[in-house]
């Protein structure tokens, strides 16, 4: 059984961060060792006056990761990192993960550089430079990155308005990171408000565009679920070195599972429900229905009614 060390947030209620990642990965057969970067009652979309709990400070985070990686020095096939609230916590995770990767070069590190979305940062400004260092250092040990459009712009330090610029940004990032999935591109790139566009890019190959119909509601945790499911699929691709497995097919599988989860989530929500950020009851109704979707997290059983979201090459 593969084992993953996952460093991201924990919420008591709801499904974001480690709560969104852990159960699906466990269903896929992973031992998931969760290092929680925060413990909050619920995610921050409920409104900051509704969030209780604490950030794991750098000293504690450092001790936890030191303890784990000292006691279990070679136990991990994969490393996953997501939301870390501060510069120091990103740096701390980066140092430990980098050291682990150097000792265990066959392990796979998926870094989700969680910084913000649609032009808005939701971490401290000085987190940016830490992620840029981890991604762009010539000695970068990151294997897979899953930025959204905004995060890719921040990492590459330029705006991306069209396909050519997107292609160029991916080429630049591939100098240090072999697999990059842009989880959602801005509308301006493909000029199509009806779909969400996702680009899967592997170094040395033409990037492939996938698109899924847009669901008009506000779901939190989809990105965290995406990176967890992707880690499982891409781990197989990289570790098995199976030439027949193609990145875009793996991403297509992940998108199918996510569409399934969103459909189930919608089915449980009140009729005509469109969640608004800041309204606690709306947010509660929009929590991903991870548990009710558990029949979807089974590799041995093909995805029912699987759709092809692969659109074209970039």
């Amino acid at each position: 059984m593969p084992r993953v060390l996952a460093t991201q947030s924990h919420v008591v209620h709801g499904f974001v961060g480690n709560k969104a990642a852990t159960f699906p990965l466990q269903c896929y057969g992973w031992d998931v060792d969760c290092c929680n970067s925060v413990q909050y009652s619920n995610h921050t979309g409920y409104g900051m006056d509704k969030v209780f709990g604490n950030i794991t400070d750098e000293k504690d985070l450092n001790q936890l990761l030191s303890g784990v990686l000292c006691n279990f020095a070679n136990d991990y096939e994969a490393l996953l990192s997501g939301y870390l609230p501060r510069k120091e916590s990103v740096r701390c995770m980066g140092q430990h993960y980098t050291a682990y990767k150097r000792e265990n070069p066959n392990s796979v590190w998926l870094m989700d550089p969680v910084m913000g979305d649609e032009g808005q940062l939701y971490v401290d400004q000085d987190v940016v430079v830490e992620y840029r260092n981890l991604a762009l250092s010539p000695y970068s040990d990151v294997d897979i990155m899953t930025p959204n459009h905004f995060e890719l712009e921040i990492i590459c330090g330029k705006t991306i308005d069209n396909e050519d610029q997107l292609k160029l940004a991916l080429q630049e990032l591939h100098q240090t990171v072999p697999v990059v999935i842009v989880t959602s591109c801005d509308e301006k790139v493909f000029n199509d408000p009806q779909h969400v566009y996702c680009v899967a890019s592997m170094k040395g190959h033409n990037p492939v565009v996938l698109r899924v119909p847009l669901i008009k509601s506000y779901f939190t945790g989809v990105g965290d679920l995406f990176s967890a499911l992707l880690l499982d699929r891409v781990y197989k691709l990289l570790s098995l070195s199976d030439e027949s497995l193609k990145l875009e097919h793996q991403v297509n599988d992940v998108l199918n599972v996510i569409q399934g989860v969103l459909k189930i989530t919608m089915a449980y929500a009140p009729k005509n429900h469109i969640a608004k950020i800041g309204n606690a009851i709306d947010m509660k109704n929009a929590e991903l229905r991870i548990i009710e979707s558990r029949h979807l997290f089974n590799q041995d059983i093909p995805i029912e009614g699987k759709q092809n979201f692969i659109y074209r090459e970039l």
Partner: protein
Amino acid sequence: MTRSKEPRAFDPFSKREKRTRRVLSVQSHVIHGYVGNKAATFPLQYRGWDVDGLNTVQFSNHPGYGRFTGFRSQPNEIYEIMQKGLLEGLQMEYDAILTGYLPSVESLQITAKVVGALCRREPHINWILDPVLGDNGKLYVAEENVPAYKQILRENDVYVVTPNQFEMETLSGVKIDSLQSLRLSFELFHEAYPRVEKIVVTSLEFPSSADIGEQYIYCACFDTHPASNAMSYFKIHKLDAQFSGSGDLFNALLLDCIVPAQKEDAAALPTVLRKVLLLVDKILRRTLELSVAEDAPSQQSRVIKDLKLIQCAELLHPDRRFEDFEAAARITESILD
């Protein structure tokens, strides 16, 4: 010997269960391994529960490894998350609350205060309380937790309490070394804490347990509800190993079986307990098999540090019939009288 995983599909959820059961589980968290919330969460989720896991500590691993790092959550943090966040802010509606290891007497008291008040307001919420004090004759929490637990059990409507032998002895004041003294401890426990509805004592061992070369452990229960008012016990073949986290797994599965999704699936306490013991026994056997296969001969003391919960997923599948596990386990049930 490792068995190949048998793929087993979940029915789309809505077909079988109309409603997701919700539990708030207040226990420890370890990054590596399966104790506390890490032992409880996956089995409960796999069996259809939405588990709100409130972590009372975050440690790198459990102390059984010898060295570990981490920190305890402060009583105020636990209070604010539960009271202000979950109950007031989110107006969460739970079917059950599970409380386990709490790192200080202050966090124990504040947790019990919030949960106790909630259960008084909403009597349909089932509180499963594991009075974590120690094991094998030794306390592993501060002395002051003993009177704190006694007070909590006196004053609150606890649905099920799950002490081990040492904890039962400590709370009832009776040394348990025979079936007779077990019965007495149940009686005195009920006298002291009449508001506790069901008592389940796990992993009992008596001096007479070693019958002709075979080791046994006992598990006993007392349903004090007037409709049943009965004590029973189970005699189980003891496995040649100790497992960290088995008690936490037991509590989680007991919760699952004793708070069923449909009212009509409710069963008598001994029936529920038999199921849970069969399933736990099966998981422990598989864990032992897999652990021995991993690093064979050196394990003299046979302390198994990590349950193999992920590898046991198919055993946890809600469609598995417990009767399938019966043959290997050989559990006998008797009335305690």
